[in-house]
């Protein structure tokens, strides 16, 4: 579904130095997969996912989504391609000037749908994210989890093939995180949607991802299944991640004896 080849991106700082945010990224993501990209802060994961719909402009490389090279598109073509790539954000980024209904309707207005089509589609999609009763409310009246559900509904409005999740659960408490992850799993199954998510939370990977990549210093240092990552981490970064968890369990064992857990 998504193939990234030799993707590079550098920033120049105000002091004139250049920072290589992405350095020759190669990545392949299968159709219908839930693909996780994990990395410590500053590894380049956010830049990577934002390059996939060109919110961030890469320097070189190709990004093929559903057979179309996103890097070659301009203006209107790019905007049309973006309608088929939904995105959700850590800070939700809902419009305060619009109700829940209005927020979900926004992408449909952009796509030029008629009022009747918009009403039907929004009703359906709000049902899918279990927010039918909140259609008339404004974002400020919702909890974090509900806001992210609206974010997901908005991202799904134009029936995309791909959903990009930029740390979508990082601002939520564990219980809400769990329910959002369940929802993502659910839409992945129901809509045959390919999901790409970036995170620094191991729980998120364990919970919903099939395959994953580890990013460090703008390079992919390891790819494979989530199981392999936890059982047989190869790269130094993966080992660091897994050791953090193992140390935690070991300490809990020492302090509280056998049977201690989370």
């Amino acid at each position: 579904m998504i193939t990234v080849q030799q993707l590079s991106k550098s920033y120049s700082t105000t002091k004139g130095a250049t920072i290589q945010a992405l350095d020759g990224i190669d990545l392949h993501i299968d159709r219908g997969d839930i693909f996780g990209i994990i990395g410590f802060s500053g590894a380049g994961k956010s830049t990577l996912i934002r390059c996939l719909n060109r919110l961030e402009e890469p320097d070189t490389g190709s990004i093929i989504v559903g057979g179309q090279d996103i890097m070659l598109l301009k203006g209107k073509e790019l905007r049309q391609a973006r309608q088929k790539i939904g995105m959700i954000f850590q800070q939700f980024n809902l419009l305060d000037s619009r109700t829940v209904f209005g927020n979900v309707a926004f992408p449909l207005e952009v796509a030029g749908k008629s009022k009747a089509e918009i009403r039907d589609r929004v009703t359906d999609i709000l049902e899918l994210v279990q927010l039918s009763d909140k259609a008339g409310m404004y974002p400020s009246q919702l909890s974090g989890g509900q806001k992210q559900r609206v974010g997901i509904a908005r991202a799904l409005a134009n029936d995309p093939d791909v959903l990009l999740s930029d740390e979508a659960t990082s601002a939520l408490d564990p219980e809400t995180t769990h329910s959002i992850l369940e929802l993502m799993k659910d839409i992945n199954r129901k809509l045959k949607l390919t999901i790409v998510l970036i995170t620094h939370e191991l729980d998120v990977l364990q919970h919903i991802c099939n395959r994953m990549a580890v990013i460090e210093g703008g390079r992919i240092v390891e790819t494979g299944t989530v199981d392999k990552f936890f059982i047989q981490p190869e790269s130094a970064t993966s080992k660091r991640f897994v050791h953090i968890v193992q140390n935690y369990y070991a300490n809990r064992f020492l302090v509280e004896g056998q049977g201690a857990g989370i």
Partner: protein
Amino acid sequence: MRDDLIDLLWTGLLETLYMVFWSSLFALAIGLALGITVVVTERGGILPIPILNKVIGFIINTVRSLPFIILIVILLPVSRFIVGTSLGPKAAIVALSIGAAPFLARIIENSLKEVAGGKIEAAKSVGASPVTIIFRVLIPEALPALVRAATIAVIAITEFTAVAGAIGAGGLGSLAIRFGYQRFREDILFATVLVIILLVQIIQWTGDLTARSIQQRRFKRE
């Protein structure tokens, strides 16, 4: 107090309101256009054109650096060209609109920049065009701030009309100078000041009320 007081005040007030209304309308239109252009054309904006951004920025700063009374004098030929005269309320509207627009452009720019970048990114991510983002995201999201900005501007324009009155624009300012000051009519001077104070209070109150009602609708609690 003499019999002509009410008549004079009424005429002056109508002239002032006439000038304030039209000047505000034109200044708001020009200011909105300039403010939006400055925000969207800057580096990293939704339609980056750095050169246009610099040019407009320069024009705004230039007009703003001139004291208003000098600006009116400079704009006299322009007024004559546009409305056919350099005297009276109509001529003042030209100077007031051009004089207040750059000031409005800057406060509108500030209001628009308060809109979180994430909302604009979200709009981009669903494929919204720059024009859609301007009219369906930037302006609606900044609306309460824009109403407050407009209130500040309308009050500033009210003050400016009084200044313009000093050089023949008519209105309450001219009344205060010509009658109150030059003909020692203290009753007119005080009455004029009183009316201007009331006018400014009403404008501020209306602006506050409008901004608050928008905000209450969006941020009401259950």
